[in-house]
């Protein structure tokens, strides 16, 4: 079996981080965490994860700003990393409205709405990891 994929989970809620970690590790992934946008960028550099699961609403530096930063040439190394957004807003209208309202085009791979069922999260993660050609 190949090296297990490493996933960086960033959310300001420690309970959410813990829960997501339990779910992902139960499927065999390696998990590292961060609590806001700044830590996110630091850990990207440090840990070089295969996938980023990113909360939107965080203090100090939020998910929107992280997405913007990833487009910055200084972070070009991590620009290609697949991103799953953790949205606390209901799917459908409001989700897309975030983008329309903020004008931030978020080149992300997926949106997942909190609270998310373990199964659903693993399915979405699995799809992306498969694309990367890595195992779990």
């Amino acid at each position, binding site marked *: 079996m190949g090296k297990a994929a490493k996933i960086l989970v960033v959310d300001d*809620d420690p309970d959410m981080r*813990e829960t997501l970690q339990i779910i992902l590790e139960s499927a065999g992934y390696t998990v590292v965490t961060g609590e806001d946008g700044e830590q996110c960028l630091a850990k990207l550099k440090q840990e070089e994860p295969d996938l980023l699961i990113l909360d939107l609403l965080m203090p100090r530096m939020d998910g929107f700003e992280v997405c913007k930063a990833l487009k910055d040439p200084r972070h070009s190394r991590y620009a290609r990393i697949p991103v799953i957004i953790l949205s606390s807003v209901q799917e*459908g*209208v409001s989700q*897309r*409205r975030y983008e329309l309202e903020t004008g931030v085009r978020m080149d992300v791979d997926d949106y997942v709405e*909190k609270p998310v069922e373990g199964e659903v999260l693993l399915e979405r993660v699995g799809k992306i990891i498969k694309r990367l050609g890595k195992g779990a």
Partner: protein
Amino acid sequence: MYVPLALPVRIGGSMLIKPSINVLVVEDDIAVMQKCRELLLNEGHRVRTAESVEEALEIIQKHRADVDMLLLSLELQRGGSMMLIETLQKARAEILIMAMSAQCQEEAVDAIHAGAYDCIRKTFTPARFSIKMDRAIEAFRLRRQMGVIRKERQAALTRVEHDGNLLAVLNSFSDGLVVTDWKTNVVLVNDAAAHLFELKGKEIYGRPVSSCLKSDELLSLFVRAMKSDSSLATLMAGEEPIVKASGKTLRVHVDPVRDDAGTAIGAVALFHDVTKVTAMDKLRADFLSMVSHELKAPLSSLLMQISVIHDGLAGGLTEKQADLLGKAKEKTKGMITLVNDILDYRRIEEGKSIQKIETIDLADTLGRTVKLMGLSAEEKQITIKAHIADDLPAFSGDSGGIEAIFVNLISNAIKYTAKGGTVEVSLNQAGKDIRFKVVDNGIGMPQEYLDRIFEKFFRIKTEETKSISGSGLGLSIVKGIVDAHNGSIHVESKVGEGTTMIVSLPFQR
């Protein structure tokens, strides 16, 4: 001489029963005066006589209501005929004046200019006299009718001004009061209203209400109030638009003013200050939104924690533990649904009021929306086809609201269409409206539900829709926004074939 009273007379072959009127003959030539008198009495009219202008004025003053017509010589020895005509005109006595002179030349023209109706030569024959008088009486009757109508309408409203006590009461209201006549000219303004709209004293009386209140919307309210039959009145009863003046927020209510016969003779508007109330409402609403948002995060966390344990990811579970946790999970889900409902309800409320009006490039907005929705369409292998006209006129409205309409309808089309289906989106001009159309070939809806789909929380529950998630609020949000823009939304659908949604919005608000 035989003098019959009111008699039927043959004129040109047809019979005419003539009404009798009160005539005042002003003539100092006794012969002429007597001739007139006789002819008039013959016709059944009532006659008074005067030999001078002074006498005539005395009689008019004494018997105001009893003088309908004046038969006035322009050749009085003591003169004054022209002055009499002018005086009566100025006083709006509404007495019809028939002048008399020897030749009816220049003096006749002057008299008619001054207000006389016609002139008759003193050398008249009875037949000629008859014809001239008939014409005059007809004119008199018509004028009377018009005068009566006018008086009726004016009387009720202008009388208010003269009643000092009533005025004192009205000026004590803290609500602003504005009354208009049937032409929407201002008739009465109380102190509170004068203060609110910065109106100075009596200068607004008689002026159109729109110039004082500077609001076309208010003008249309007044006009509608007066046109109202009962059905329109009921419609208006629910309308209490908000206007802003002098930094205050005011709620307006306009009612028609009716006379005893039920005819609308004007309108009355009451302006109630709701500044504090509105501010508090907003605070309360914002608080509600804020709390709901704040509750959502910990509830989500909680649910996930319970789920993780329930799924066995934090160690083995006894059956009993699994059972209890399962129930806890359901309860928590219920709370999250409730919080979401509150947040959605708030979204609808906000959607109903237009936040900001600006010029929107509809083609661009729709284009971007379609691109964004492409993601979810792709997941189901659904093709989105867009036909956006490139010559759309400028549109002004609430941009967030318009985007919500686009997103909601396209999202629904995708949700309710099976894999491999098609969604066609079009945007073009249709007359005075912008028309936005979404056509899908999805599962469609049964006819009996079509007029319920815009209800809050209403969702059609069938086998097929069971697995489709949604709060049932999308369409009620769309309807609220469409209504706020004075537009309309129309739906056609056939089960198994698909649904078409058409939104029409006037591009001039």
